[in-house]
């Protein structure tokens, strides 16, 4: 790629490098507003939480490997089980999908130089880190959340849970949702306003459609959770009675609000995975996605209909039959957009010429697991079956096939797929395939027998079981599967770490990718593109003339935008060039204000309200500095 540049072009590229470069060292990472560096911070942090959540899963499986196990005490089991759910959902899957993949890739895919609000982006990351550490501070001080990730009242009320375990949960999730909301708003504006000239909505990558849908879902779903947690804190700390039936409250209010958030959450978790699948499949089948507009529409529809199905998590609470029938019907409708996407992937694979390299293998695994989890999910729309099998291991099997099989597998495939782009090195193909097969077989062995043991009547969330009920062989198989899966994941990490240091150098476009990120060097320069690309189709990398024209523009100095932190803004629908934006540069204030927010929540938790107000004032000051101070540029 790096052919010798003409002197003019070279001067422009060097100037761009000076303008966009971060400060060196740790300070550079602390003050960065580069979406790629923030994406990497998200990646490493969420992978660390993945390791924690995975360790918790192995502890659970070790406890349940035999009847009457004694690895964990009942109290330790409940904390472990709760933290496994909280960690995997709030501290791993959402941050790695939106934070890491979305942050790193969305601006690249749409040909932008950064997110719309770079400092808000940095702020999102630091708040996420703060909230994760906040929740885990509870675990390390012996007050780990222990009422399940769903945290039903009255078990989570002060009466039945007087320790601060639940306060770590409720405040931690409000804290965490600040980060997710800020990130979601950033994605919406970025995707609508920052697309490269010519990338009208119908030419936008399906990956970006998925992130657009996820961002809207986050913005509308998170308030329900935050309000729910705020009610809970008011009940616990100030003696309100939102959830106390003895004083006119209602325990089902918690469940309704929780699942109004919780079901869209499922789609928030899985839509980025769909986006990754729709990036990887065309590349490795060397063919366009079949039914592109239907898939784009389906991604949006899933996120929308997902808001109308929450009560199917509550079929056994005694709702009237007519209510359950409505929610069952809505839950069946949401199957259709998923089926459209599934068969669009399958048809693309069948009518293309698939190359079964490691990233595609993870997508195949994803498709297989998504079908299994989807089919068992449809079964839960049969109300009497739901009422019989909900809260058993059958439902644990179902959502692990969905959340691990269908949401995490594409993320892991995506790690392999974009590894050369991010690091400039190739991963090891053979070890990559081995890591896939270990993970795939491990997952199948860990999660499939859960269906059977659920049908045999094993409830969820039990810390032990009797040898007389006939569940032992299945639990043994599940635990062995979990260890195999862990081995596969360790192999994946080892492959990537070793390849980072010793892998073959990666070209800009090692796989024949379809989207713009493959047109820049591996790894991309801080400014992403020396020339803002102009797009004329949904598969810009296959438009060779366009990309050659970009190179010629560099010589002519067109669309280089080298006067400062510049990137173009475009119109929402047609992506006509609208104006050139002067973007804010790196800044210490996002991390400082996130620190102040951490202080606010720590003081709320410990009940030091005056100190809390001081942190609030400091937060306001840091916001002022954030907007007032603009460092000098090169």
């Amino acid at each position, binding site marked *: 790629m790096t052919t010798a540049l003409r002197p003019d072009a070279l001067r422009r590229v060097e100037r761009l490098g000076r303008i966009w470069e971060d400060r060196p060292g740790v300070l550079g990472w602390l003050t960065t507003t580069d979406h790629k560096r923030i994406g990497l911070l998200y990646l490493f942090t969420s992978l660390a939480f993945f390791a924690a959540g995975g360790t918790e899963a192995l502890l659970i499986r070790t406890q349940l490997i035999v009847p009457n196990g004694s690895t964990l005490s009942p109290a330790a089991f409940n904390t472990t089980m709760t933290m496994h759910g909280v960690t995997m959902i709030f501290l791993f899957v959402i941050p790695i999908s939106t934070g890491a993949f979305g942050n790193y890739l969305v601006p690249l895919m749409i040909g932008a130089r950064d997110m719309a609000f770079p400092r808000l982006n940095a702020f999102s990351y630091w708040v996420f880190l703060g909230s994760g550490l906040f929740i885990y501070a509870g675990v390390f001080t012996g007050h780990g959340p222990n009422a399940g990730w769903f945290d039903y009242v009255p078990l989570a009320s002060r009466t*039945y849970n007087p320790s601060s375990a639940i306060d770590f949960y409720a405040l931690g999730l409000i804290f965490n949702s600040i980060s997710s909301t800020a990130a979601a708003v950033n994605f919406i504006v970025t995707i609508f306003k920052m697309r490269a000239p010519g990338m009208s909505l119908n030419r936008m990558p399906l990956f970006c459609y998925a992130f657009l849908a996820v961002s809207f879902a986050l913005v509308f779903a998170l308030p329900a959770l935050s309000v729910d947690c705020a009610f809970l804190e008011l009940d616990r700390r100030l003696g309100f009675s939102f959830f106390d039936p003895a004083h006119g409250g209602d325990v089902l209010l918690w469940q309704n609000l929780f699942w109004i958030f919780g079901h869209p959450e499922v789609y928030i978790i899985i839509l980025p995975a769909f986006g990754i699948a729709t990036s990887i499949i065309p590349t490795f089948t060397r063919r366009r996605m079949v039914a592109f507009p239907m898939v784009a529409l389906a991604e949006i529809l899933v996120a929308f209909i997902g808001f109308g199905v929450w009560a199917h998590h509550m079929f056994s609470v*005694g709702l009237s039959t007519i209510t359950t*029938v409505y929610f069952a019907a809505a839950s069946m409708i949401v199957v259709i957009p998923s089926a459209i996407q599934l068969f669009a992937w399958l*048809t693309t694979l069948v009518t293309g010429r698939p190359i079964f390299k490691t990233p595609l293998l993870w997508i195949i695994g994803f498709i297989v697991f998504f079908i299994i989890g989807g089919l068992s999910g449809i079964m839960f729309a049969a109300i009497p079956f739901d*009422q019989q099998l909900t809260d058993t291991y059958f439902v644990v099997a179902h959502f692990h096939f969905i959340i691990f099989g269908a949401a995490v597998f594409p993320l892991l495939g995506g790690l392999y797929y974009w590894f050369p782009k991010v690091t400039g090195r190739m991963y090891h193909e053979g070890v990559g395939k081995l890591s896939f097969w270990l993970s795939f077989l491990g997952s199948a062995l860990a999660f499939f027998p859960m269906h059977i043991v659920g049908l*045999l009547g094993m*409830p969820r969330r039990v810390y032990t079981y009797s040898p007389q009920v006939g569940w032992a062989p299945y639990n043994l198989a599940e635990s062995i599967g979990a260890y195999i899966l862990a081995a596969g994941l360790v192999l994946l990490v080892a492959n990537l770490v070793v390849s980072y240091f010793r892998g073959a150098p990666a070209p800009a476009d090692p796989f024949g990718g379809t989207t713009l990120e493959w047109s820049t060097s591996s790894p991309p320069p801080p400014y992403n593109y020396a020339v803002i690309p102009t797009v004329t189709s949904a598969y810009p990398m296959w438009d060779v003339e366009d990309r050659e024209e970009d190179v010629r523009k560099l010589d002519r100095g067109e669309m280089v935008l080298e006067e400062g932190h510049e990137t173009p803004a475009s119109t929402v629908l047609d992506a006509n060039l609208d104006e050139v934006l002067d973007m804010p540069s790196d800044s210490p204030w996002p991390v400082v204000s996130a620190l102040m927010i951490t202080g606010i929540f720590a003081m709320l938790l410990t009940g030091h309200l005056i100190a809390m107000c001081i942190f609030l004032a400091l937060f306001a000051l840091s916001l002022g500095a954030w907007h007032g101070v603009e460092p000098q540029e090169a």
Partner: protein
Amino acid sequence: MGNPGRELRGQRVAAAARRALLLAGVGCTLLLLAGCGQSEGGQSTLHGESDQTRKIIHLWWGMLAAAAVVFGGALLLLAIAYRRRTREGLPAIGQDEDVSTGLVVAFGVVIPVVCLVTLFFISDIGVVNATSAPKPGQTRMNVSVVGHQWFWEVRYPGTTAVTANEIHIPVKTPVNVRLTSADVIHSFWVPELNKKVDMLPGHPNNVLLYADTVGAYRGQCAEFCGLQHANMAMTVYADPPAKFKAWLANMSRPLAPPASPQAKAGEQVFLTQQCASCHTIRGTAARGRIGPDLTHLATRRTLAALTIPNDRVHLADWVANPQRVKPGNKMPGLNLTGTQFQQLLAFLQGLK
């Protein structure tokens, strides 16, 4: 990249993995079939003892058959994609975007809609009514069950009978069970007799219990309710009507005065130590409401909601070390002398 030795090794690994996958698939199927066999003492949802559960089981096997067809079809498509990976040029249908879009519409919209509408009418219009809660006055027999952390309080309205963790019902008789909770949310679930229904503070629910055959049916709390959620089980005994009547009559009686002097002394231990502040024994001054009613404790087959069998060894262990047997439960350890302990056990074992 491009190292033929590596590629070959990768292919060998992949082939081995495929064989392992096939084995795993066969293994899973065998496990599933093995699961259909009923084990003694289990609580399988696949073993129906009432009209309600049999309908749910039929629904399950029907859905599984349909799901197997869909899954098989999808695997077939993946296999075709794999077989054709080396072919040059696009296949016939791939060149025509309309044909491939048509496939997506057929498989992704039309067929799912037909299947889902069918499922909706069978399950959500049909079976749902068969398993729904009985209407007021529909059954002559009523039982009230109150969920506690972590045991089941069982009452028979119209009688003074109170017991715990063992529900006796007459066989072939529809029984309306009224479900409430004294503390957190629990869920009442006897998988062989009916679906589960939650026990919520502030929202009483009802569920129909009916058993075709005489027998003991295991049930377990299905909503996470704290430390000992795992040890909150129960047994429903479907008895012949005469046996049930005799049982209920006995349950309704207060305590008969203890026969042996040792048991009499044990009663005093029970009343003067902390036992009576949490437990009720009808016919004595013990009126505690925190733990289960113990009037006929000795008739029960298990202790602590099916955690341990109700024999002398386990009873002694339970009274001596309640926090070791079931950590977190509300029963404290007592400071009894050896004599007092033996007297108390004699008394408890006489609560027939």
